[in-house]
């Protein structure tokens, strides 16, 4: 059965003359796994919403969509609710009711099923998703990954023919994200449900895809099997060049012919073939930045326990050098965020010592600590914006400072320039995109000119193009002597841009090294570049290093 047939579809948002979707032609068969990608603002979200009539945005559309062999007008709301599931990226607000059981029942109640049937469906679904242990829990007691699972389950319970997922894993950590995608894969392969998914973390999802649709400026610029993406697209499109999984990037950078590798295993094979009898150089060059001898932060034997739980930190020792960009990595619940909150004084250090610039954190007055000493960029930037314009929020940060009006304006001016937010200073914070909001939040953090900046998973939900831009800003700050400490799950980002990485496990810091030695020592918690090249170039951890060694060896 054909799920969708789209002919010459264009779409304009109200008061906009540039099309958000431009002459889209698309046909989607039952049981296909389709990945839609493109940089933010390319129209992928709009396209996905056009595929779900209840969520179609307001605006003017031209062209035609056939839903499940029915015209748009014949395709009722009930048809849509029954046949098409739609999962959003926001894990918090998608869940409508308070408990897992009632959440699973919600859609079925809307369809008007009786309690007996609903009970049966819930039984089936909880067995399929292994939700039995969660069934009697409140939604608020679940982790982000579990919430997203429950939302998916509640959609699957309605027995849809197609499920549309709009960046479903962008708020999840890598472990939950890959477990989630695994379930999505199963839904397709075992139940024949059509999957249409948009993502910006493409590594895990591309090997699953039948088709990948790449969008730019509202147009589909490529629609084919992932291994068949044309060289043309790969070389010309900045987004594709930077965002495709690493094995594909290496393949195209080296200008190789033949089948494009999608997964780590295929990438590994490709390198083995390539280097078979040419291997001569195996040590990559490293750019290790000379770090200052001074310590910015010292944690000595710090322990911490939350109310009603055991120790999260069990006597951790950690030193952060002045002017360095340091990443705290590790699994969920290992204590990374707790360590960050203690260092930034958000949590009070009750056992052990924390020194900021060789002085105990307890000896600083709060006003002293948060005025030009420390600043924290929160994970959810929404928690900073109250004003009608971005400028208002920036001004509110400096409201109580001793600076004169001119000095304040000057500082806002220069920091807006630095974070590149000048073009939308006078817009409402909720009218700008997620990436722009994050930059505006960074500007708020920088206004007090802190010497140490804490970042809590800043790259969550960022596309690769924006990550590069963000990293450049952080680098500039570090070169200016600012110390940056970051909690992150993003191995690629840390390997590419950090100075030092620390592994937090079970409340202790088990490894702290410069990034190259750090990732070269890990087997599983490491970068894709290291994984595909481990047997050949044991110490290469970044894409740049792998490419450098490949080229050097191939030249001989």
């Amino acid at each position, binding site marked *: 059965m054909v799920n969708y047939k789209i002919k010459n579809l264009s779409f304009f948002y109200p008061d906009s003359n540039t099309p958000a979707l431009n002459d889209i032609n698309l046909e989607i068969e039952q049981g296909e796994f389709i990945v839609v990608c493109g940089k933010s603002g390319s129209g992928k979200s709009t396209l996905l919403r056009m595929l*779900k009539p*209840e*969520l179609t945005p307001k605006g003017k559309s031209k062209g035609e969509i056939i839903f499940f062999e029915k015209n748009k007008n014949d395709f009722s*709301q*009930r048809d*849509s*609710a*029954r046949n098409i599931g*739609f999962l*959003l990226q*926001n894990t*918090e*607000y*998608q*869940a*409508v*009711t*308070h*408990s897992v059981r*009632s959440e699973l*029942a*919600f*859609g*079925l*109640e*809307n*369809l*008007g*099923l009786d*309690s007996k049937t*609903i009970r049966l469906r819930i039984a089936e679904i909880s067995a399929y998703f292994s939700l039995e242990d969660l069934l009697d829990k*409140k*939604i*608020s007691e679940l982790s982000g990954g579990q919430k997203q699972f429950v*939302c998916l389950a509640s*959609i699957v319970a*309605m027995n849809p023919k197609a499920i549309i997922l709009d960046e479903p894993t962008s708020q999840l950590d890598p472990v939950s994200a890959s477990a989630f995608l695994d379930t999505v894969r199963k839904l397709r392969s075992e139940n024949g449900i059509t999957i249409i998914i948009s993502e910006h973390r493409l590594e895990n999802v591309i090997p699953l895809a039948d088709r990948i649709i790449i969008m730019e400026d509202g147009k589909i610029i490529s629609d084919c099997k992932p291994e068949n993406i044309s060289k043309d697209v790969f070389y010309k499109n900045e987004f594709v060049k930077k965002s495709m999984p690493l094995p594909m990037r290496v393949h195209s950078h080296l200008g190789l012919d033949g089948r494009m590798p999608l997964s780590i295993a295929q990438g590994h094979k490709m390198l083995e073939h390539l280097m078979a009898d040419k291997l001569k150089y195996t040590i990559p060059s490293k750019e290790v930045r000379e770090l200052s001898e001074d310590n910015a932060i010292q944690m000595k034997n710090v322990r911490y326990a939350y109310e009603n739980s055991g120790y999260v930190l069990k006597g951790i020792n950690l030193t952060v050098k002045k002017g360095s960009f340091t990443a705290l990595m590790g699994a969920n619940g290992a204590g990374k965020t707790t360590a960050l909150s203690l260092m930034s004084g*958000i949590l009070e250090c009750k056992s052990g010592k924390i020194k900021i610039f060789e002085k105990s954190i307890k000896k600083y007055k*709060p*006003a002293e*600590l*948060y*005025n030009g000493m*420390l*600043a*924290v*960029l*929160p994970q*959810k930037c*929404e*928690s*900073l*914006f*109250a004003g009608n314009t971005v400028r208002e929020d920036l001004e*509110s*940060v400096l409201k*109580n400072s001793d600076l004169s009006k001119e000095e304040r304006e000057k500082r806002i001016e220069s920091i807006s320039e630095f974070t590149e937010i000048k073009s939308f200073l006078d817009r409402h914070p909720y009218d700008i995109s997620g990436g722009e909001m994050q930059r505006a939040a960074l500007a708020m*953090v920088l206004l*007090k000119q802190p010497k140490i900046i*804490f970042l809590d998973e800043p790259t969550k939900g960022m596309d690769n193009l924006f990550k590069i831009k963000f990293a450049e800003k952080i680098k500039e700050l570090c070169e200016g002597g600012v110390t940056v400490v970051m909690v992150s799950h993003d191995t690629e980002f840390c390997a590419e841009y950090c100075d030092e990485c620390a592994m937090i496990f079970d409340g202790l810091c088990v490894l702290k090294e410069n990034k190259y030695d750090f990732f070269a020592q890990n087997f599983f918690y490491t970068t894709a570049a290291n994984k595909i090249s481990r047997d050949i170039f044991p110490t290469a951890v970044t894409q740049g290093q792998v490419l450098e060694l490949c080229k050097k060896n191939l030249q001989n």
Partner: protein
Amino acid sequence: MKIGFKYLHPFADLMFFIFSFILCLIATNPLILIISFVSGAVYDFKLQKKKTTAYILKFILPLILLITVFNGLFSHYGVTVLFVMQNGNNFTLEALVYGLISGIRIAGMLLWLDCFNEIITSEKIIFIFGRFSPRLALIISMVLRFIPLIRAQSSEISNAEKGIGNGVEVSGFIGKIRSASRRLSILVSWTLEKGIDTSDSMRARGYGLHGRTSYNDYVFSVKDALITVISFAALVLTFVSDRKLSASYNPIIDIPTPDAVSVILIIFFASVLLMPLMIDLWEEKRWSITK
């Protein structure tokens, strides 16, 4: 472990609590009130163990004492004068006893309320309201989802504000109000903005279609029917027997001498009040659950 009184049908549980509250409210017979108090305390202890012990020692007993003493000090009716206070008022046995009985009545109600909170879960409340209005049931459920969400967000906001140094140096009343209102305004715009996702998620799953049903997980069994009927009978008897069993404390303490009927009535009330405990103990023994 999903057995016992807590896992009965909501109607059965609710009917029992209506009876126990009404009994505490209108009974005047000291024996009935004491039985109600004791069985409430014992069942609450069965449900919450340590928490109840602390509740009784730290709150319930002092409350009874306080009510007794206050009534003795400020009410002066009755014929049995124990002594005359400095201000010339009589301190009477009747006032003291009435105070004690009132204290036990209130304490009994509070203990049953504690049990109620434990037994009548939000699920059951939603079910009960859902029988009258499915929409109301959904609203309650959404509110229950919203409260912890808002709480988590407000703590995130205050940490975020602290982290960029907003509001850490404010002093004085006006400053605090200003910084609190800023936080509230962040919370409101954030919640409204993200609320769009909730409404999208609802519409995407067919909310608004005609003929929505309300799902519930409860089956009304013979046992539930039996317990509902017993509780209802006890409730009716409470009203009917009120005159027969009633005691008065003014001007003299007059407790009717028990005849065969009233003994049977009191035994019946006692066994109904102890019913939840008996059900729990019986089921635990039956399924050999030891804790």
